[in-house]
């Protein structure tokens, strides 16, 4: 069967910004799909609002639209591009929902566009819980008892029948947003109400609880000829009740008999057929009662998903790529398996290793958030690890998370503060029991503590419902730990060392257990000649030869790494996604690979994040799926050196993760390409850096470092309050705060994490109401420096740069300041002997440009600038690091954007009830979008829209600002009034505005009376909120307002500069209208002018 000939142009919809539940796995799948479609000669039109994606690189598609993902924007693109078909199955729930909306609005019909990959009826059956339940009943597949409710009354009727605990699942939301588990009627009302509200169709499913049952997933594919294969089975170690994205999972399923597995496979085939996914991949979830084997189908996703990305990485079978080809009409047996080359894709991968996925949470960023894991996903990233046994993969997974010492499983779990005082073992048992029964991000640590205390498997099974087989494995790990501790390092035999390493213990973990340095463990291990081998992932359990060097380490006899003697470079990736270190760094790593490839290097990628493009075996020449620790990276370096060539490492592109390894690797004799680790260290070392700036005569806010409370007070007294405090070597402003007084400073120093003489707390004078600017540049060995972009923040200094919106070119900076910034940037880059990328942050206050921070490495803004300029900054940097000069690459002038581009952040607050949405120096956003236009206002409208904030064109604006901001808010209020907005103010603000000639009505604050501002937001009486913090007294009032606005989807702006930008944007919206433009057109216009 040849491919369909009726399709020439395909529109691929991406998944938008990174949010919890929808991360870079969709860049991976979308990129694969784009490549696959183009390799078949099709023209690809791509739309995605997220600039930090490989898929939005202009080379990946014929037409690339970085535009908001809304039906009206898509209609404009469809009208211009006239695609024959839309592929909505590689962009997550976002793309699927858009396809449904486009159909409902009649847009597909109007422009005669076909859907490929999934049909509207299939999407509806899979997504509409009632239709799904009925479909399952029709084909004889059991599902939990359930009912659909559209009102709270209906929901209460349902729960009377299905009983407690009750699972509430809103229809058409992603990652379980708005869902939950209710154990009583009160809780039920709250969760059901929220779910009804958050479902775009205001519908929830009330479901019988199968909490505690074993949970499984099948990744399945089907082609147009009804051929069906299972790519991978996945077992959740955490049983039903914890969202699969928050579960520790293992592939393949390990506790199913063949009878049980085949029954599930048969059900999978029937389900994908009945739902009607004609071509492509789907994910189907099942639950099995461990007591009697009863199996129920839970849900089905008719698209590629996070689990399918995991399955692709776990098996070597590229699901998204194959799905794209199947959508064109190919049959599975017509597509070759890339890895074996000789066999077709119509088979089921056989795995001869074990894969463990461990979620990465970021609760430390949201102290008020509820850490309980439920049916609503809360993790922000994940690490995957591969080993020959479950134990090995599991421990590799734990160390891949980069949790530091705290992450070691054999440490005491952190108890809540009140429990810490308790001390007695009885209390500890009670507490442990609670930690085991109620799943949180720390449950695994509690479980190891319980095993350590000798709790029996049966008891732990009763408390957690985790399958005894896994508990047995954990118990064996604990026993091995005890043996190691008893014997000690000096007397450790070859056999014991080998056994420990084969069980997955890292050198660092052993060092902690044995009370020695990691280097001592390493020495002993080398002396005993216990070294890892590398095995290949080949889809077929070694039945056929593999041509793809996709590898993992294990302590086995035979090594299949087979290093070449080519000039090679190892690019260290960024590990699991977390807030502050996300897809932007993976994007940069991929471009480093592309750059070094162009310079003739063999590229070797090391990373452990299954969601990424960098861990696609197609990206680098060789891929090691490994934790990013010194031990694991050195093992790869040593093995690659056996090709008898020097092996260099690149640490600049993967964020803080590889940087932390730089000095150690260099000390071990590994060449680090580009800027020297010493320069990187200089920039991080506050004393050295201050000296450098002093020498260069570049101003910096006065600052100091402290390792104690007394030192901190001293420094603060010298520099003057307010101050910014933060630990060294952190990303994303972890534990960064603005402190206004001594008491708060003391408290900070007491609770600060990880303070030592090597890593003191940095204290800088905080510049209030300063304008903040970010600069990325690239420099070569000759000292040439080219500036990639000067980005002006829309929010003032004090809000983490990752959480600020910013714009290029900078509209509010004078030529003099721009010249100063350029000059400083060049001089700093030269002084640090930067080879590659450097990011600099400046603040402008009282007409003076200050340097806030310098990071000689890839930054979060590199992909955004690359898209704005049409030049791949990270790739250029890699080529410079490979030895090319900027002049040789033809890059001699500072880069200029091809239009006006605004980057805006996206936040996860909607998932964390009770957490304040106010921004500060600690980064909280998970992702970003970009909006482009000819004017700032329009670009800002698009960025806001892309980030899910639809600015109103009319209605009422509520203004509630603190005293300091009142003067500045006045012109903004006048502007809104001129545009015909009704102005509402809280008492103080309203009085001020009225006194200054703005017609303004008054609304109660939350603690003043009802109806309050929050009520009016809920009642949809207010279309925009401008609310700057009022200081501590009214903190809770502000917080309630901001949360109400967020839940109601009303834009809430918390800075004056942001409000001014919003005003300008709304003005633009009313005068210009929203137009779309492909990146290729922006670049072509610049090239021709």
């Amino acid at each position, binding site marked *: 069967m040849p491919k369909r000939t009726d399709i020439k142009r395909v529109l691929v919809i991406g998944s938008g910004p990174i949010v919890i539940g929808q991360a870079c796995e969709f860049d991976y799948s979308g990129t694969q799909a784009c490549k696959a479609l183009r390799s078949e000669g099709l023209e690809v039109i791509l739309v995605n609002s997220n600039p930090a994606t490989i898929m939005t690189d202009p080379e990946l598609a014929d037409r690339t639209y970085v535009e908001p993902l809304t039906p009206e924007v898509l209609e404009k693109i469809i009208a211009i591009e006239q695609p024959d078909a839309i592929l909505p199955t590689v962009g997550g729930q976002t793309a699927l929902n858009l396809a449904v909306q486009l159909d409902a609005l009649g847009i597909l019909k109007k422009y005669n566009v076909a859907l490929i990959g999934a049909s509207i009826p299939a999407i509806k059956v899979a997504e509409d819980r009632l239709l799904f339940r009925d479909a399952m009943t029709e084909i004889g597949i059991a599902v939990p008892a359930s009912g659909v409710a559209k009102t709270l009354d209906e929901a209460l009727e349902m729960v009377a029948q299905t009983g407690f605990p009750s699972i509430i699942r809103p229809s058409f939301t992603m990652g379980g947003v708005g869902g939950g588990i209710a154990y009583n009627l009160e809780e039920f009302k709250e969760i059901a109400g929220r779910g009804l509200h958050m479902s775009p169709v205001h519908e929830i499913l009330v479901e019988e609880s199968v909490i505690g049952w074993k949970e499984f997933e099948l990744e399945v594919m089907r082609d147009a000829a009804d051929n*069906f294969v299972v790519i991978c089975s996945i077992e959740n170690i955490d049983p039903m009740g914890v969202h699969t994205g928050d579960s520790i999972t293992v592939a393949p399923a390990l506790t199913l008999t063949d009878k049980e597995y085949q029954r599930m496979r048969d059900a999978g085939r029937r389900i994908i057929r009945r739902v009607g996914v004609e071509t492509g991949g789907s994910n189907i979830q099942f639950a099995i009662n461990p007591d009697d*084997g009863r199996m129920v189908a839970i849900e089905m996703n008719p698209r590629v998903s996070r689990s399918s990305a995991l399955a692709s990485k776990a098996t070597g079978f590229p699901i998204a790529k194959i799905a794209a080809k199947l959508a064109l009409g190919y049959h599975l047996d017509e597509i070759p398996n890339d890895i074996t080359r000789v066999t077709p894709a119509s088979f089921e991968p056989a795995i001869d290793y074990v894969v463990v996925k461990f979620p990465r949470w970021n609760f430390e960023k949201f102290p008020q958030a509820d850490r309980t894991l439920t049916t609503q996903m809360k993790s922000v990233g994940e690490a995957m690890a591969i080993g020959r046994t479950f134990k090995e993969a599991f421990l590799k997974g734990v160390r891949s998370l980069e949790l530091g010492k705290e992450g070691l499983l054999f440490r005491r779990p952190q108890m809540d503060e009140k429990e810490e005082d308790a001390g007695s073992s009885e209390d500890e048992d009670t507490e442990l029991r609670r930690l085991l029964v109620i799943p949180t991000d720390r449950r695994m640590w509690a479980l190891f503590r319980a095993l350590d205390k000798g709790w029996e498997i049966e008891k732990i099974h009763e408390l957690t419902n985790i399958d005894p087989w896994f508990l047995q494995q954990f118990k064996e790990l604990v026993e091995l730990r005890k043996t190691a501790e008893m014997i000690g390092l000096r007397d450790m035999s070859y056999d014991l060392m080998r056994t420990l390493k084969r069980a997955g213990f890292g050198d660092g973990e052993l060092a902690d257990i044995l009370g020695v340095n990691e280097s001592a463990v390493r020495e002993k291990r080398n002396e005993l000649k216990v070294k890892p081998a590398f095995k290949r992932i080949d889809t077929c359990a070694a*039945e056929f030869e593999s041509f793809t060097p996709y590898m993992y380490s294990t302590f*086995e006899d035979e090594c299949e790494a087979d290093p070449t003697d080519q000039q090679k470079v190892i690019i260290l990736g960024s590990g699991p996604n977390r807030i502050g270190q996300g897809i932007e760094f993976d994007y940069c790593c991929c471009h480093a690979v592309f750059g070094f490839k162009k310079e003739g290097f063999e590229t070797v990628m090391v990373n452990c994040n299954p969601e990424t493009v960098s861990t696609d075996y197609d990206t680098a020449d060789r891929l090691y799926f490994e934790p990013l620790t010194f031990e694991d990276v050195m093992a790869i370096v040593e093995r690659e050196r056996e090709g008898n060539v020097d092996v260099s490492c690149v640490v600049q592109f993967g964020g803080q993760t590889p940087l932390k390894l730089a000095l150690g690797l260099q000390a071990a004799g590994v060449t680090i390409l580009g800027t020297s680790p010493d320069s990187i260290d200089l920039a991080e070392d506050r004393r050295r850096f201050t000296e450098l700036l002093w020498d260069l005569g570049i101003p910096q806010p006065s600052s100091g470092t402290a390792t104690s409370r007394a030192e901190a007070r001293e420094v603060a007294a010298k520099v003057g309050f307010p101050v910014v405090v933060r630990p060294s070597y952190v990303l994303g402003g972890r534990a960064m705060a603005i402190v206004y007084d001594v008491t708060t400073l003391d408290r900070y120093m007491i609770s600060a994490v990880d303070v030592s003489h090597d890593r003191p707390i940095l204290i800088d004078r905080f510049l209030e109401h300063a304008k903040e600017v970010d600069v990325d540049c690239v420099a070569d060995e000759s000292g040439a420096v080219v500036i990639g972009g000067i980005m002006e923040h829309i929010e003032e200094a004090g809000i983490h740069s990752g959480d600020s919106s910013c714009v290029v070119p900078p509209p509010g900076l004078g030529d003099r300041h721009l010249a100063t910034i350029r000059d400083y940037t060049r001089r700093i880059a030269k002084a640090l002997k930067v080879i590659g990328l450097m990011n600099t942050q400046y603040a402008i206050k009282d007409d003076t440009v200050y340097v806030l921070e310098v990071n000689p490495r890839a930054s979060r803004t590199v992909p955004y600038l690359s898209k704005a300029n049409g030049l791949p900054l990270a790739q250029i940097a890699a080529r410079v690091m490979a030895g090319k000069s900027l002049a040789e690459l033809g890059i001699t002038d500072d880069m200029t954007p091809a239009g006006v581009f605004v980057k805006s952040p996206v936040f996860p607050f909607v998932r964390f009830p009770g957490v304040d949405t106010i921004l500060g120096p600690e980064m909280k956003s998970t992702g970003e979008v970009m909006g482009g236009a000819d004017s700032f206002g329009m670009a800002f409208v698009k960025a806001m829209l892309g980030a899910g904030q639809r600015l109103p064109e009319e209605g009422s604006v509520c203004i509630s600002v603190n005293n300091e901001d009142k003067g500045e808010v006045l012109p903004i209020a006048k502007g809104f009034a001129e545009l015909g907005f009704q102005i509402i103010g809280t008492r103080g603000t309203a009085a001020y505005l009225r006194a200054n000639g703005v017609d303004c009505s008054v609304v109660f604050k939350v603690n003043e009376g009802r109806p309050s501002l929050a009520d009016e937001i809920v009642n949809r009486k207010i279309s925009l909120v401008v609310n700057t913090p009022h200081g501590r007294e009214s903190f809770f009032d502000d917080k309630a307002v901001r949360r109400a606005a967020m839940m109601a989807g009303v834009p809430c702006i918390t800075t004056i500069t942001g409000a001014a930008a919003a005003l300008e944007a709304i003005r633009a919206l009313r005068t210009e209208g929203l137009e779309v433009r492909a990146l290729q057109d922006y670049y072509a216009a610049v090239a021709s002018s």
Partner: protein
Amino acid sequence: MNAILALENGTWFQGVSAGAPGETAGEVVFNTSMTGYQEILTDPSYAGQIVTMTAPQIGNYGVASADTESSKPQVAGFVMRDASPISSNWRATGTLRGYLVRHNIVAIGDVDTRALTRALRSSGVMRGVIATGSVAPAELVERARRVPHMAGSDLVKDVTTAEAYDFETSLADAVTGSSFGLAPLRRAQRTLKVAAYDYGIKTNILRRLAAHNCQVRVFPASTPASEVLAWEPDGIFLSNGPGDPAAVTYAVDNVRQLIDADVPMFGICLGHQLMGLAMGAKTFKLKFGHRGANHPVKQLETGAIEITSQNHGFSVDPETLPDTARVTHLNLYDGTIEGLRHISKPIFSVQYHPEASPGPHDADYLFQEFLDEMEKK
């Protein structure tokens, strides 16, 4: 306790004993199924073979009486990467280790099974010996070299039933009574009598036939064709079994006579090879065989792909196929013949295992086709 697996090529693997103590010898093969170790252990087609599981975690769900394919484990030995000390499943009646010890099966764990598999893949299956306790590897290698070759060996005589017997349907219910068995697409209109030659038959074949309303009598492999025909069966079934088909000359002779008898006939695995030989084709030994649950097979008539359960070391040579036989199924991995049909008679066979167990149920329709042929008569 230590254990060693030694191969005829002089290499050996150190591991730990994971079953009964002692020594065992056989042809070392690998199976890539990720589930179903108990079905594999008890499949009589593995007689004389030391089976290596490429899936690393074996024994996790223990053993259960309903998951057996014959009365006891049939393998000569068993090789694993990591054997589970416990069993975790609601149906489990014991641990894998206990089962192996009880049935005196020598097994080795902690082996780099991937290295072993790669060796078997590149040099072909090899003879080998597993021994537990303190043993000299060099000596074991020597012993491995003295193990008889599989080619030319009639292993059927060791595993076939001594007496004919009627399959008890209650045995079928043991599995299909729970929700695990695939429901038959339809049952026969009347009770059909199937004469099944036991060359080492897997129980699930009998369960599937019984599920379709067949009355199955199982005959010893050497039963003369005339005796089988005297029972007046509606159809004849040729089972799977171990060893070299060409060595089972008496069976080939019987099948030849049965082809002439014009009774619907269905063969699986060794039964398929015997049918090929009886029609005049030749068989040859594959380098490392097909053993697993993921092999794609194409049904030539419809183009449909089936994911199949496989266990065979020999194959019918397409070059020698007579005009009376037509190829119906092909293996998409290596293009070998997976199915044959007589051009004019209701006779067909497949190289793979439509009864699955372990493996996917994709090819279950073949039992129905057999039913159709029988009902036509």
